[in-house]
């Protein structure tokens, strides 16, 4: 079986007898890329683990109705992004008075993360990324780390290529400024 072919995987998923097997292959194929995307949004491994599990549960529940209007990969990425952003939104709701912001919490997670292996300058970069507005942060991560094309990002984030380019440009300038400080 050409297990990397999404079309074949989807047709296997639609068959009751091969559904679990097909889904297992889909998870193995995409789990790492989706996990790292989510991890950069929520920072902590435990939170990323929760989000990625919820993502794949949603995928399981919705895959039968997926009509291939977009690529499977794009659809999965969109679900993972939405799950991660919803997770942060729930966090925000907990703090009505913004003495402690979600960004503060994420920065604390980053500093105390035992699964962060970067050096000092990488830590500084991550902190600079955390200081960006949410959308810019998302765009920066997808472009800089995932090296995703703007056209692909536009499909996932449901926005225009021009807006994404502008967001990325602003993000880079702000990060550069932050890196230049002390």
């Amino acid at each position, binding site marked *: 079986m050409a297990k990397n072919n999404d079309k074949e995987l989807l047709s296997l998923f639609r068959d009751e007898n091969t559904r679990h097997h097909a889904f297992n292959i889909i998870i193995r194929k995409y789990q790492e890329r989706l996990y790292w995307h989510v991890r950069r949004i929520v920072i902590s491994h435990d939170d990323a683990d929760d989000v990625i599990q919820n993502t794949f*549960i949603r995928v399981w529940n919705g895959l039968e109705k997926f009509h291939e209007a977009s690529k499977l990969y794009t659809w999965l990425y969109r679900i993972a992004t939405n799950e991660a952003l919803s997770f942060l939104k729930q966090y925000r709701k907990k703090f009505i008075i913004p003495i402690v912001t979600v960004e503060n919490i994420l920065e604390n997670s980053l500093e105390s993360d035992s699964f962060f292996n970067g050096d000092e300058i990488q830590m500084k970069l991550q902190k600079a990324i955390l200081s960006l507005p949410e959308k810019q942060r998302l765009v920066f991560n997808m472009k800089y780390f995932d090296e995703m094309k703007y056209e692909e990002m536009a499909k996932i984030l449901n926005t225009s290529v021009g807006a994404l380019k502008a967001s990325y440009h602003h993000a*880079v300038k702000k990060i550069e400024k932050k890196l230049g400080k002390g």
Partner: protein
Amino acid sequence: MDESSNISPRLTKIKRGNPYSVPENYFEELPGRIQEAIHVQKETEPVKPFTFRFIRPQLAVAASIIAFAVIGYFGYKLIHSDNSASELTSGEIAEYVEYYSSEIEEDMFIEMLEENKLPEADYSDLSDEIITYLVDENIDYQSIIEIL
């Protein structure tokens, strides 16, 4: 090198690697844990009986029709109710008058009395028995007669 290199000399110097890591065997175990979570979800999902699922739309239609019929019936009763004064007790009338007395004008009252004229009062046969009763009860019957 991407288009940001011109505006980000510091950023381009940083190693573009992934600074994060995961626990050992995390990606080997993740598919199994996800399948397990899906299995648990399926088991805990409340299963509706087939017959209920099948007749649910019909039940909804029937409930809507009954609700419309009930609302229509009571609406009709309310609009066409003939709550005439003849069905009211004297107590209810007194209560009504007391409550709305400020809104009822004296002239209107007199007019109503004129229309439904009562027979003239005849106090000539005020018997001794009644006068004795009033005296016994310490009621000043003279003043009553004067008023009348």
